[in-house]
């Protein structure tokens, strides 16, 4: 049987705004890396690879990650893989590390997600360079304008209101208030979310993620090689990605996350998950715009089409519910680029190890789901099922 990959440690830095951040990108990454090594108990010389991500242009660099790795103080011989897949970079870091380990090519790989929304003075202009050029880029659509297409179509099909969309924002903020690493830790009411500054119909500013700075790191190891590590290893049971056509207009249906639903079927099959609501104990989805979350929960099989908002309203997705969602506060409260994309995997791993911050730990969580998505119209998805061993 092929080697399986496990997560053996995690490092997180507290998040803040670019304006308040006084550390450099390198310093934040160093802090996350040394945090992960300390959490795991791994000696630096036990590493045999690094997988690190960046998003070209967002920090005024191209392949900026390659300039960072030698300055981490982890030696001069480590092979480095650099990933650059935009919004899915963070998830893909773990996928690539897991595949390197499963292939038998590496035994202990450090995965690093840096604060890639760090430098841009006008981040929206930088993000716009990622949208499909020639036919969609000239049409006045920034990231949140594209994100607004989903709720506009969902409202038409299911009759959801702006108040309905606010529900997931309220819950994310409530969860973030318990997470010492989150950027926005204030609680909000539905009225406050609805009454916030209108950005793009039907999104208000409180339904759109902040620009955060932080770094995250994870240690991916070959199963059976972690006896020197302190945490309970977490198995990467299944991990896959999928994509829609390049153009936003290639999406078939904006009222459903079809691409994610197809991916979920595949990943559940790999992980032998038959009833996700019954079998999954903790969930982190990448929903930088509040209305995405109920739609993602539907695509992932936690609610029927049109039932995602009712699921959140029922309390099932709170910390004391049967399927807690985004106990970290999610990207709506902390979004630091590649670090933010890696965060769902970091938080789910910590939950399953029993090492999450006390106020957000789900007692006895054994199986978790971590999701990522990117592309200006969210054409790209990645999805993982993790299990406590």
């Amino acid at each position: 049987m092929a080697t399986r990959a496990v997560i053996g440690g995690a490092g997180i830095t507290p998040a803040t705004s670019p304006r308040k951040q006084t550390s450099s990108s390198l310093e934040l990454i160093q802090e996350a890396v040394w945090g992960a090594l300390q959490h795991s108990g791994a000696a630096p010389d036990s590493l045999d690879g690094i997988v690190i991500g960046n998003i070209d242009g967002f920090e005024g660099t191209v392949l900026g990650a390659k300039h960072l790795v030698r300055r981490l103080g982890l030696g001069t011989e480590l092979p480095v893989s650099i990933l650059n897949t935009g919004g899915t970079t963070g998830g893909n870091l773990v996928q690539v590390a897991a595949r390197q380990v499963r292939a038998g090519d590496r035994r202990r790989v450090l995965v690093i997600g840096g604060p890639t929304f760090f430098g841009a003075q006008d981040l929206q202009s930088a993000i716009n360079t990622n949208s499909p050029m020639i036919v969609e880029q000239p049409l006045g659509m920034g990231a949140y304008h594209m994100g607004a297409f989903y709720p506009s179509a969902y409202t038409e099909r299911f009759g959801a209101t702006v108040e309905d969309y606010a529900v997931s924002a309220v819950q994310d903020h409530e969860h973030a208030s318990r997470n010492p690493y989150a950027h926005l830790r204030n609680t909000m009411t539905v009225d406050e979310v609805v009454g916030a500054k209108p950005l793009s119909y039907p999104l208000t500013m409180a339904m759109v993620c902040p620009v955060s700075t932080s770094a995250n790191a994870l240690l991916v190891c070959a199963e059976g090689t972690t006896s020197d590590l302190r945490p309970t290893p977490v198995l990467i049971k299944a991990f896959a990605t999928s994509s829609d056509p390049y153009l936003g207009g290639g999406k078939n249906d904006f009222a459903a996350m079809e691409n994610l639903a197809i991916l979920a079927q595949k990943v559940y099959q790999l992980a032998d998950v038959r009833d996700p609501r019954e079998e999954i104990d903790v969930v982190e989805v990448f929903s930088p715009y509040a209305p995405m979350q109920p739609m993602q929960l539907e695509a992932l099989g936690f609610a029927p089409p049109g039932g995602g908002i009712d699921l959140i309203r029922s309390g099932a997705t709170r910390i004391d519910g049967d399927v807690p969602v985004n106990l970290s506060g999610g990207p709506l409260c902390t979004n630091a680029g590649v670090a933010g994309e890696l965060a769902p995997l970091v938080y789910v791993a910590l939950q399953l190890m029993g090492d999450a911050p006390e106020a957000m730990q789900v007692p006895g969580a054994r199986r978790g789901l971590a999701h990522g998505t990117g592309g200006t119209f969210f054409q790209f998805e990645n999805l993982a099922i993790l299990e406590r061993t």
Partner: protein
Amino acid sequence: MTTTQRVHWDLTYDVHLGATWGRFMAGLTEQQILANSCPECSRTFVPPQAYCESCFVRTDEWIELPAEGVVEAFTVAWQGFRGGPTPPYAIAGIRLDGASTLLMHYVGGLDLDDPSAVREQIGPGTRVRAVWAQERTGQILDITHFEKI
């Protein structure tokens, strides 16, 4: 202590359109919206694409689509971005008659002063028609916007 230093990029690119998008753009200068179809699954793509990503075959049947269709999803930008249009403005995913994909474009001629009245003006299902630019140079903005029929 200074913790930041300003870095500036100023880059210009000439992107080669290739045969498929080149033909689409040439069509726009003639006030034609050209699409192509997959011989296997019969889906019609606009903007056109050289291959069908589902069937792995070349999509070399070209057709002209009517410059009319239906809004399927939309947003109204109350806030824009530097270098973009002045808000408010409306953008929609438009299903041209006969198309299997959506064409993204502006929808103009709306009264966007009252946010609560937006949905009834361009909600999904609204029929729209392309408005052509006087001077067309082979770019997506040869259609200045779509307007309600």
